[in-house]
């Protein structure tokens, strides 16, 4: 299927095609492509107006909230203040009311003066300047045609920008690396200009024209950059360095901020002075004509040029790389390097970067440097090949599921620590909240030391992660503090206290009573009538198992129960204590979670507390569903018994539609609106637990290129789906197809309907497996995973079904 256009968000406008310097390392004038010779010197205002209209058209179509336009050259200041002002007016006029325009200019600085700065200020144009370091470094290449130095003019321009009056327009500095320069002298010289940002650019090169390296230094560019990284990192990273930041981000699975690194699809396009669209300036180093697209703003929309093969090649992520890159463990960070740097006559761009040794060394160095020094060495979670084979086939035994659960527990411990750490640093929380947070953390750490197994049982509760992720999202949203409340952070104390009670430890905690109730995860919920929104409960536990709750002037006394864990109140009040309840069947006991305040993280709203009668219906339905799973689906039974810990009842959907859900944040839990038919419940459990398993696998491994933003046809939906959605759906439907296959082969009363369902879902699943496999975006492990699913599903395609059951092709 043809994928949708990745919208452009960055536009490089060549407003002038000539330059007033004659830098001998310039890729515009000194490269294979000499396209600049055919360009008009200056972009006409009418052309700029057309550019603005095309960008506006594109922004509307893709609902872009913001676009970035860089006025570039040649040397853009040669266009003159008047023309630059006209271009800015044209762009802002076209984009007014459509989207925000981030307007920038990149200049060599030699002409930059007060007049230009006033113009920039008036039109909101921020400026970046090219400079290669100190005077000696800069003048190695950046000279006038007669050989005269440009250094003094450039520094004067920087001084103008960094002054108080125009500081807000100062974007930063761009430095081209030259191995002949001392890296630390270059870094110190750049830093002395107090830039908000520095970017380092390796000289554009290809396999046909590789970068010069000294003998015996196969990664000399890495060595040069690493020297700066170490100085920068060791001094607390005093300035934003885009290249290093991008390496750090990509090694964490985040997007890159530069095309030079990472798999993030390129969203940049160049528009020449004549209005022609070009792919990327860096391609000028490959061969004459390489950047050209044949399209222009007068005759073609940006969506049209977005389908150009060259543009798409820079958006195809992992699928666009050569085999060597695809197999490289660093590929998600490196991304094959800059597209132009892969070029070699004969093989085109299907090569590693000519800077591969440098990228490898630099990424490994930065990756090792940023690791926390106290992190335990050499211990990481893993799956065995057997585990992976079982899971890829759609199943997974107790050992495999157990390993997924262990990994989730580590993740939760890291989440708890992160919530504590970030909330502690919050300036917007009141002193009382900080005191309670600190006390809760101390109790948690104490229980962790004295009864680690018990704490682990509480932390394994599915909605601990949902709570932590919610808090971290809030804490990260609006700077320090965010808008997470004291009551929300109180869940940490509730976790600690629940574990202390279960472990029979002497402990006391002040726990916010959000919504007039005290929730103790895995134990239950106590209604506290008469308490206000800022009320709290003092909970005290003793080693003898006695528990008291003091809130709103009232006291409740209870005794801790061991199995199942719970509390028995001495003076039960009608409905005040809502204990955790369980559904049981031979070989399995799971919580029916209808109280946890963080359970409502599924797409469908959670149901309220179940009545006793409803609990009975759940028990009856679950018992029958489990019996069906145990007898008819033994390949799934063991994994479910090992990993399914919780069912959250959902509110019934309109029209009694069967609904269910799994949440990535809630390993072990499945949310279901109780169906009347136990067989349907069995199907929903099988389906949703596939998502649970796959989510935990994806927490451990990359199965696909996460930066691939393409959408693919999913046979079970009308709208195209992103790769992860397609993978999740496919994996779930392996189980769905298997469910109906068994029902069909059992030849029971629903055999005819089952045949139809089976025929539909085996075809849909087989089709989506092939879509995944041919996407070009699966990692080697992802490809292997797709092979595993295919091995399960392929034999089903040979199972004979009645002709009437065969789905009609869409």
């Amino acid at each position: 299927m043809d994928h949708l256009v990745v919208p452009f968000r960055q536009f490089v406008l060549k407003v002038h095609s000539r330059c007033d310097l004659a830098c001998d390392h310039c890729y515009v004038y000194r490269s294979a492509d000499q396209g600049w010779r055919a360009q008009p010197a200056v972009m006409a205002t009418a052309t700029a107006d057309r550019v603005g209209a095309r960008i506006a058209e594109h922004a509307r179509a893709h609902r872009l909230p913001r676009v970035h336009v860089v006025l570039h050259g040649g040397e853009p200041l040669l266009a003159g203040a008047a023309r630059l002002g006209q271009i800015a007016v044209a762009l802002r006029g076209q984009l007014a009311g459509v989207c925000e325009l981030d307007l920038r200019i990149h200049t060599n600085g030699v002409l930059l003066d007060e007049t230009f700065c006033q113009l920039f200020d008036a039109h909101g144009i921020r400026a970046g300047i090219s400079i290669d370091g100190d005077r000696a470094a800069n003048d190695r290449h950046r000279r006038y045609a007669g050989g005269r130095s440009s250094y003094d003019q450039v520094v004067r321009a920087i001084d103008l920008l960094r002054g108080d009056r125009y500081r807000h327009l100062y974007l930063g500095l761009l430095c081209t690396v030259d191995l002949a320069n001392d890296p630390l002298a270059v870094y110190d010289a750049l830093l002395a200009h107090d830039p908000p940002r520095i970017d380092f650019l390796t000289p554009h090169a290809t396999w046909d024209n590789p970068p010069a390296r000294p003998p015996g230094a196969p990664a000399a560019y890495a060595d040069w950059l690493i020297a700066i990284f170490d100085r920068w990192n060791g001094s607390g990273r005093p300035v934003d360095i885009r290249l290093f930041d991008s390496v750090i981000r990509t090694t964490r699975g985040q997007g890159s901020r530069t095309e030079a690194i990472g798999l993030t699809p390129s969203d940049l396009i160049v528009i020449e002075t004549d209005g022609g669209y070009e792919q990327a300036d860096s391609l000028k180093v490959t061969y004459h004509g390489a950047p050209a697209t044949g399209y222009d703003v007068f005759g073609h929309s940006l969506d049209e040029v977005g389908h150009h093969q060259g543009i798409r090649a820079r958006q195809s992520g992992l699928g666009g790389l050569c085999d060597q890159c695809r197999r490289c463990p660093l590929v998600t960070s490196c991304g094959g390097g800059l597209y132009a740097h892969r070029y070699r006559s004969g093989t085109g761009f299907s090569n590693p970067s000519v800077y591969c040794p440098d990228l490898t060394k630099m990424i490994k160095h930065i990756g090792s440097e940023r690791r926390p020094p106290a992190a335990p060495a050499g211990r990481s979670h893993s799956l065995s090949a057997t585990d992976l084979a079982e899971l890829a086939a759609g199943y997974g035994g107790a050992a495999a599921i157990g390993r997924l659960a262990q990994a989730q527990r580590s993740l939760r411990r890291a989440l708890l620590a992160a919530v504590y750490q970030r909330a502690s640093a919050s300036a917007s929380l009141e002193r009382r909240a900080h005191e309670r947070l600190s006390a809760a953390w101390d109790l948690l750490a104490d229980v962790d030391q004295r009864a680690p197994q018990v704490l682990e049982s509480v932390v394994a509760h599915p909605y601990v992660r949902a709570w932590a992720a919610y808090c971290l999202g809030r804490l990260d949203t609006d700077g320090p503090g965010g808008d997470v409340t004291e009551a929300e952070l109180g869940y940490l104390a509730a976790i600690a206290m629940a574990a202390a009670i279960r472990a029979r430890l002497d402990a006391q905690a002040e726990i916010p009573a959000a919504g007039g109730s005290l929730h103790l995860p895995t134990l239950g919920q106590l209604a506290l009538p008469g308490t206000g929104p800022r009320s709290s409960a003092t909970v005290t536990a003793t080693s003898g198992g006695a528990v008291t709750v003091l809130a709103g002037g009232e006291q409740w006394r209870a005794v801790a129960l061991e199995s199942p864990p719970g509390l028995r109140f001495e003076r039960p009040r009608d409905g005040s204590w809502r204990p955790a309840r369980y559904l049981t069947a031979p070989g399995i006991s799971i919580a029916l979670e209808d109280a946890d305040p963080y359970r409502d993280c599924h797409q469908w709203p959670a149901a309220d507390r179940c009545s006793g009668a409803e609990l009975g219906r759940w028990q009856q339905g679950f018992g029958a569903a489990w019996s069906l799973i145990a007898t008819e689906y033994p390949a799934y039974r063991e994994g479910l018994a090992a990993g399914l810990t919780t069912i959250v009842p959902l509110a019934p959907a309109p029209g009694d539609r069967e609904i269910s859900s799994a949440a990535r944040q809630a390993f072990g839990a499945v949310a279901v609106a109780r169906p009347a038919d136990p067989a349907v419940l069995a199907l929903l459990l099988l389906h949703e637990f596939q998502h649970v398993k796959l989510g935990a696998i994806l927490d451990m491994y990359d199965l696909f290129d996460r930066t691939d933003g393409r959408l693919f046809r999913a046979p079970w939906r009308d709208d195209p789906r992103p790769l992860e959605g397609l993978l999740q759906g496919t994996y779930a439907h392996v189980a769905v197809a298997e469910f109906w296959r068994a029902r069909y082969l059992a030849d029971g009363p629903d055999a005819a309907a089952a045949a139809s369902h089976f025929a539909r879902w085996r075809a849909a699943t087989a089709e989506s497996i092939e879509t995944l496999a041919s996407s070009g975006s699966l990692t080697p492990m992802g490809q292997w995973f797709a092979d595993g699913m295919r091995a399960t599903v392929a034999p089903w395609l040979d199972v004979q079904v009645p002709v009437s059951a065969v789905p009609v092709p869409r």
Partner: protein
Amino acid sequence: MVMTVADDQAVEFPSDLEDLHLTPLPEIAESGAGADALARILAEESSRHVPVAAFNSSI
């Protein structure tokens, strides 16, 4: 993390998720252990194309 799966069934495939089972919580908080995997997963959540709970049954 990208890796190649071999046929050897005894092979273990480590992920970048550190085993923090035996690491005391204060040490995790102090050292930032697990932060790399966490950052990746949280970033993935925030940039996810598919809403967290959008994987619903179609039966």
